[in-house]
């Protein structure tokens, strides 16, 4: 007889949803805020007889990983808990979840960490989110040895994907593309001055990007001074009125503009004037505004670089195309790391089988010794004891070696371990006190 524990190569499952599986309103409903996670993890862990649990909840996905010998039962309990906790109608929304088991569950986590399951292919934030979720699970005491090993391997996989491939290279959003262009022209930002022209939603986003990238001096120019002042106060910048734009252009190394102005605010004359004031130093203008804020003819001036939305879109499309070309390389890394983890897991599984086999045969030996040596003198009994123990060790030598070898051979090895279990009757009750003497390995 075999149980689910022995037949399934990995007693692990994931239940969740992501941007491909469900619309935003469902993902929002299922998302967990950080404070909710530890309590919910403990509930799931308790329901799974202290099995390892780990949750990843971001704006694009909520996934719950769990380890339990009975995967059918565990899947049902995890699903029920999720539905109940988030008050989700099982009849209507059940198909919005996906479920992977065994190797597929490990692959899912590793692919997520490597960024190939993200909406923005190759994004770097997801790896940090996996690390943060790992910390939360650790602090909630929701992970055992296997879970910790799994998460460490997933994080290593994510790091390898980014170090060994260009899956995260380049810019995918217009705002990030604008900032990366400025990096390509100026390098380090710490001694640079940037002007953000327009303090609307896009301008604020770009200004935050610049601050995160360590811009030396940030000037925020806006038609409405109050809005510029608010953003400047938040980002330790300097707010200027639109009337001071010429001063800002002369002082800046680059300008990122995103106003709603119907007419270009920066024309050729203004840039030529600024270039004279700045002694022809390199000047970058990134115009994200539609209609455009910078007159296109500015592009022809020496040492002036002008990029508009079309140019930035070329950049983001090229980035996406390049990242897509990297996916097969990342999948190879994922496959290697998954195999590495599964090999370790199988190695872990061989050890208890060897111990169980030895225990089983020791028990048989003890029973036979009890039955057949009670009439012997102590010296004779000791001699028989020694002979049977030695014989047992010799008999166990080959199966032990076989099991250790099998544990390193992945799926096929696992099947061999299963065969060994059946062969030695490890899933059966110990033999009764009155076995058929012909079947007994004991001493007659």
């Amino acid at each position, binding site marked *: 007889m075999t149980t689910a524990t022995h037949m399934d190569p990995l007693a692990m499952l994931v239940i969740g949803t992501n941007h491909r599986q469900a619309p935003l309103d469902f993902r929002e409903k299922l998302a967990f805020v950080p404070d909710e996670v530890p309590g919910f993890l403990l509930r799931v862990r308790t329901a799974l007889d202290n099995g390892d649990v780990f949750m990843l909840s971001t704006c694009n996905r909520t996934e719950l990983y769990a380890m339990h010998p009975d995967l059918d039962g565990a899947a049902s309990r995890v699903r029920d808990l999720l539905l109940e906790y988030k008050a989700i109608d099982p009849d209507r929304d059940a198909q919005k979840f996906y479920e992977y088991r065994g190797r597929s569950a490990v692959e899912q986590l590793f692919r997520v960490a490597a960024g190939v399951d993200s909406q923005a292919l190759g994004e770097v934030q997801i790896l940090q989110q996996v690390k943060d979720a790992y910390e939360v699970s650790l602090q909630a005491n929701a992970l055992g040895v296997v879970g910790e090993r799994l998460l460490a391997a997933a994080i290593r996989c994510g790091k390898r994907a980014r170090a060994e491939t260009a899956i995260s290279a380049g810019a995918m959003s217009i705002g990030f593309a604008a900032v990366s262009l400025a990096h390509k022209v100026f390098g380090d930002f710490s001694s640079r001055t940037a002007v953000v022209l327009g303090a609307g939603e896009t301008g604020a986003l770009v200004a935050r990007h610049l601050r995160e990238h360590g811009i030396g001096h940030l000037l925020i120019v806006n038609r409405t001074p109050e809005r510029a002042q608010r953003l400047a106060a938040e980002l330790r910048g300097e707010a200027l009125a639109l009337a001071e734009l010429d001063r800002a252009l002369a002082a800046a190394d680059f300008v990122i503009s995103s106003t709603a102005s119907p007419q270009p605010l920066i024309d050729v004359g203004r840039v030529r004037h600024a270039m004279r004031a700045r*002694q022809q130093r390199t000047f970058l203008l990134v115009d994200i505004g539609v209609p455009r804020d910078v007159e296109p003819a500015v592009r022809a001036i020496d040492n002036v*670089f002008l990029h508009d939305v079309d140019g930035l879109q*070329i950049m983001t499309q090229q980035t996406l195309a390049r990242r897509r070309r990297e996916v097969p390389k990342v999948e190879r890394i994922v496959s290697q790391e998954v195999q590495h983890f599964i090999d370790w897991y199988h190695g872990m599984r061989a050890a208890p089988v060897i111990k169980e086999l030895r225990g089983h045969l020791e028990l048989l030996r003890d029973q036979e010794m009890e039955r057949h040596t009670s009439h012997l003198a102590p010296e004779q009994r000791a001699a028989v004891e020694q002979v049977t123990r030695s014989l047992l060790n010799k008999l166990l030598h080959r199966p032990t070696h076989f099991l250790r070898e099998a544990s390193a051979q992945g799926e096929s090895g696992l099947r061999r371990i299963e065969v060994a279990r059946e062969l030695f009757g490890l899933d059966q009750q110990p033999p009764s006190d009155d076995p058929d003497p012909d079947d007994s390995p004991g001493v007659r």
Partner: protein
Amino acid sequence: MVQIAPDPGESFPMHWAIRFAATLLPILYGLVSLAYVLTFFRNDPVARRVAPRALSTTLGLHVLYLGLLGLELRRIPIATSFESLSALALALGIAYLVQERRSGTPYTGLVFIPLVFLCQTVSSAFANPAVEVSPLLQSPLFGLHIATALLGYAAFAVSAIFGVLYVLLYHSLKGDRFGIIYERLPPLEVLGGMNLRAAGFGLVCLTLAILVGALWSVQVVPRFWTDPKVWLSLMAWVVYAACFVFRWARGWRGTRIAYFTIFGWLLIVFTMLAANRLFRSFHDFRL
């Protein structure tokens, strides 16, 4: 190939070591070049890790090679064009490695290291240190003169390479082309800064080389101004000095400076080659 007549006795192993190093260096520089090509075009992680280490090791061997050659010949091994080429290769390699360490980007190695490979291959193939050289080279001033001149020309070569890279990236940026040039090259201002700093360093070295050379030549070659190479060096000095004057006085920036340094380097190379073919120069130290 470097040929030195084996000297019976103790210098015999050294002779073989020098021949071995002269053969090995082009092979090693070739392999290092390949690693930088793979780094640039395929961003190969193994090549990226191996390339700078292999370059450091090869440069170490190169220093050892020139040291042994100097000991064997009992003079500074930069008396002939082909010997100087090896020293130039070493100077270029070291300049590149320093730049890579400072900037943290290995991609410009694609341009530098094949050039180093070429210089050393030509040097290993054609240098013949067995030729007798002028006793003028015993003067300590000669060592300073030749070292500063070589450093100056190496710096001008570095400047020209950064000038080319600057122009490539400048036009990629102007034309919204975000291909491999955009991806791999260091930031434009970094390239511009290296272009200018290398030219400035070269100018200082060349100034020193000319001054020391003049001081030394007055004693040993009174009619030194009749040598075409002296005039070519002065011309190179004027070109690079003009570059800085224009930058300071006329506000020249970016591509103008880059094109000027590329032009300056081409001028030096072609006029030196022409002078070697057409004129008898006292800068040829063979007897």
